[in-house]
């Protein structure tokens, strides 16, 4: 069983509390035998896969497989072309780790549902949406990357794993993937 779950903001990617004030996956009536494949930080939202098939862990998480994950990041300010090049080329060094090249582009507001609590917008500073496709998943990588180019992330949503898209799955909702959708998850290019 492979489940796509739209993790809302403020929820940790586990079923038991980690000692913080964040909520857990236990509140979403998920099937009793599934476990998250990878993690999504409490302050990030979007697509989280859960499964009861342990082999999927290896297929999706091993860095050698370079499995793509796509994020929408709302950042403060408007990144310049040079900033975008820095993101794309994989030249950023974050905590002694040179990040791999990724696909990064500016996008129009993707019209995601309003977050609760809403992000802290600054009236006189514009914000921009970026779409980033990463092939690795270090801790808070997207946030660190956008911060490194001087545009801190205000909101981060994972919108796709492989070619499987979050689409209109509402925050807090989940669905079991059918055969075709499973294939999309594992598609890489």
């Amino acid at each position, binding site marked *: 069983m492979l489940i796509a779950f739209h993790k809302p903001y403020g929820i940790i990617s586990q079923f038991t509390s980690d000692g913080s004030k964040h909520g857990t996956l236990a509140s979403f009536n998920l099937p009793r035998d599934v476990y998250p494949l990878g993690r999504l930080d409490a302050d990030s939202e979007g697509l989280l896969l859960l499964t009861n098939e342990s082999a999927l862990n290896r297929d999706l998480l091993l860095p050698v497989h370079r499995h793509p994950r796509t994020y929408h990041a709302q950042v403060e300010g408007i990144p310049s072309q040079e900033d975008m090049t820095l993101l794309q080329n994989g030249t950023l060094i974050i905590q002694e780790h040179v990040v791999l090249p990724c696909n990064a582009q500016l996008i129009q507001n993707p019209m995601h549902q309003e977050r609760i609590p809403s992000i802290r917008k600054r009236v006189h500073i514009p914000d921009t949406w970026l779409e980033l496709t990463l092939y690795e998943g270090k801790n808070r990588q997207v946030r660190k990357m956008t911060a490194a180019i001087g545009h801190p992330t205000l909101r981060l949503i994972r919108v796709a794993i492989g070619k499987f898209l979050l689409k209109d799955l*509402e925050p807090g909702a989940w669905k079991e993937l059918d055969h075709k959708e499973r294939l999309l998850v594992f598609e890489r290019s």
Partner: protein
Amino acid sequence: MSYVFANQRYHDLHGSEGRFHAVLGRLVQKGSFENTTLIIPTGRRQRMLDRMITREMFALHKKPVPDIPMYTLEQFAKHVYSLIIPKGTYRIISDPYRNMLFEEAMVNVDLPFYRGLGTTLSRQTIDKCAEVLYGLRKDGILSSTLNSEVRSANPKDIHGIHDIARISDLSTILHEYEQILEREYLLDYPALLGLITQAIIEQPQSIRRYGTIIMDGFSEFTEPEWLFLDALERSETAFACFLEYDPENGPLFGNFDQTFGKLGNTGFKPHKMDFSEGVSEPLHNHLRHYLFSGKRPQAKPEFAQPFTILECINPQSEVDAIARYVRWIHSTQNIPLSDIVIAMRNPEQYSGLFREIFPLHGLPVNITDRPKLHTSPVIIAMFLLFDIIRHSCRIEDIRTILMNPYISLPGVKTTHELLQSFDEIIRTMRIKGGKGLKEWERSFNSFSLMLSRRLMNETMQIRPNGDVITRIEKKIEEVKQVSGVIKTLQELLIEEHTPCNPEEAINTMKSIIDKSGIVSYLEVLSKHQHQQVLVDIHQTSSELIERDVRAMRAFFLLLDEYKQLRMHRNPNIKASFKEHLERIVSIVHGSQFQIREKPGTGITVTSMEQIRELEYSTIILCGMHEGSSPLAYTADMFMGRELPDSEERHIRRERMSFYLSLVHHAPSNRPRTFLLTYPALSSDLHDLMRSHFLDELMLVTGMNAEEDICKQSFMNDERTPFLRYLTSKEEYIDVMMKQQHNLDHLVYKQIEKWTTSEQIKRKHAPTAIIPDKRHSFSITELNEYARCHYQYFAKRILRFAEEETSTMWMSALENGLFFHHVLHQFYTSPLFPINDRYVLKPLSMNPDKRDVYRGELFRIAEREFRMIDFQHPFMDIERQTIFGNPEKGIKGRLDMWFDMEWKNMQQSQYKPALFEISFGNKGDTIPAIDLGKGLFLKGKIDRIELSDDASSFVIADYKTGKNVPGNADINKGKEQQMPLYALAAQKFLQSEYGLEQCTPHHAVYYSLHNCTSKIVMDPEQKRSVALTPEELLPLSQNYVASIHAGDFELKAKKDQDCEHCSFMTLCRIHAIPPIRGEVGPDEEGT
């Protein structure tokens, strides 16, 4: 090699009885533990020995087994205290209470280094100081010692004190702490040991009743413990301490050599026992001799045989592999689960994973960790409530309370809508929080009052606007809901400054917890669990409930201890409730709670320390990577410099921990197997390095890293059949499906049917309805259509909401509403005659009463401003902008507007006559005006000015923004307001007011931004390009016709028109060719 350190009395009584287990064996044979007391390092070992001795004694003697006098060192000290110190003299304090006393000491004294210029210390500083100072006390260091070190500090001495200011502060705190203990007759553990040590020295016969005292399993002692042992050695009681120590490899792990030397110095006579004095396993001896020696000794093949080393993908996969291994050996080798132990250096890293993943494989798990109390979800929930008091009601605290599953506030039903309303209201009201519940209440009252007045104003209108009324009513309902939450919190909680004694404070806290529904939530969960009803909690609910209940019990015990000790100390002194809370926070931060061991149920998961000297047939050590086992060494610089040998001592301790988890000293022939695992990647996919302890183990047991480390990713490895072991029927089905491809399609078809398609229904399905022929258009609608047909379609037909932006300043809408209300009230005030619908007269101002008019205008404006005066930092600036600041010579907008109005009144032939005339809206008495060709107009005219003879009129509109339209915009049809309002006004002045001959003359915009007026459509203007309303009407009529015809085609536009459009993501403007004359970047040069 074993040693026994014993006093003369022990040697006299027992001679050389051999190693600890041989002594135990003889006691079991004798069938009595009378006159013998055992002291063991851990509770777990105590329980295990107790079970083992009980079983063996019953098997031998077939009679009830008496209680075995067995203690940990701390339990023994407390027992001795209860025996030899008169009751009621002192009170022993718990660890958390000790932390609170340290905090109290820090509050009492002057700390130039830590406190600096501030008044408060951070929680981290308090905790760290308490930890360091207690560490010093455990090592027998007193404040006097520290103080003399500070006084004699020599900066040139590299081993001396360098950070004098810091150590001086620490010394002051320690001195104050010692004073509190002494003053209040309180004892912490070092003080307890000191007290009984002194008592034993003074009365050596006082502990005779314990008979022979035997200690085993210890490797290190603190300074007060040394002194205690020294006292025992000198007492009249036989005392022996067994030490498993081999001087050959002593320096390699543990701090045996130091212990050995110190024991020798205290007067004990060491007696060396060789292996013949007890059975010992060859592997055990081999490891004791060579582990960590760096040598590759001649190893027998059977030394490597019990070990399997497995490299896993990440911690999650590691736990999954361990679960399969456990299921596999349990099923294939019939090893009972209680005979398997999983140990790790740092259980906090893994306990969560074991709790969650083991139940997925149908494995009961028996985790005995000691989580920190303040990390328990139920304690977090309780402190969320207290945080409202502590932090004066911050926004995030209220939001978290609403979202917390444990808390159910009386009369408040938390829904998604309530959270949305909460967010919306605080944004609209710009509440910052953190100023107390009363401030929230004040803000809500002010906002509610303003809304009610607006509602009243709106309903009192001759022609009230139904839409506006509905919106205000909805807002009022939302405010009511959210202020209900605040009221409930106000009733539930107590004012932070309320003075109370400890008993009253604790009773209040308990009452708050009781009323917050936390206890009843746990009761409901527990009830559901008993009835095996599926509740909204994951697989380990029973353990979660246990965890919560234990945390809660520990918390209530702490509250009771606080109450008793504080009441004992100062029953009459009252402190603020917040002060009591801060003390409780301090106590809770320093305490842990225990998830109890459940012997015989499930597989034990615990720390490496807890399995020392325990006999399990299968030992699984997980997390064997650098940083976890051994734990990473971090130099503790808190004392200003690194303590000598601390790194060496750290690594020896780590080695000891690893060594003791591999061996045990009890004689046994049972074979043991070991699975040693480590993750190659951390949870966030960082590379991890295999522990060098594993390399050391491989070196001495003849294993090879290249060949002997199995990898989880190689599923077909013959040495790891357990990785392929399937633990649930779902896995079997899955594997079967993969093997029989023909089944795939059918089965997946079935699965597709089960998937929850309902969940992906669109919430806001678009309803494409083209306005009917009788639809009344507002000016905004028509202007929107004129600006962009597609935007009109998205907003009016698809009904997508526009993106809202919030600002800390007064919004344009608020500004507009404010001025509209003020001006409307001004002209309808008693200073002016009442205009009724039959006798319409232009209003004028008496030239002699300028100040009266100005005063009335300002009075109205002040009243209106109070209604919107929320808690936001820019409000003073807004006030200054509107009312001005005579002290700074700043003229306000209101004054500027009044000057302009006064001038107009004196000079213009047109005077204001009608205000806020609404027509065509729901509830209006004037219906929509039919302007022909399907154009029915609705709207609200800000003001109509009449000529003295009522033969012509002027449409006036207030503009709050900077941009005021001109004739060009009107002629192009971008701004249709003035011509259409002029035509509409002409019609209703005829029909409603009987002004048959009254015609529009021109229109005027009054800018409230810079208080200027701009005339448009004036036929008398020089070089006028103004068209008449009649000439402009066909433009609007054509728009209406296009809308009715469904023409929403996207037209090419200039980029700047789209820059701030909310519908850009829907729109395909960039996909269509650029407008003529412009060349896009892609077409350049073609």
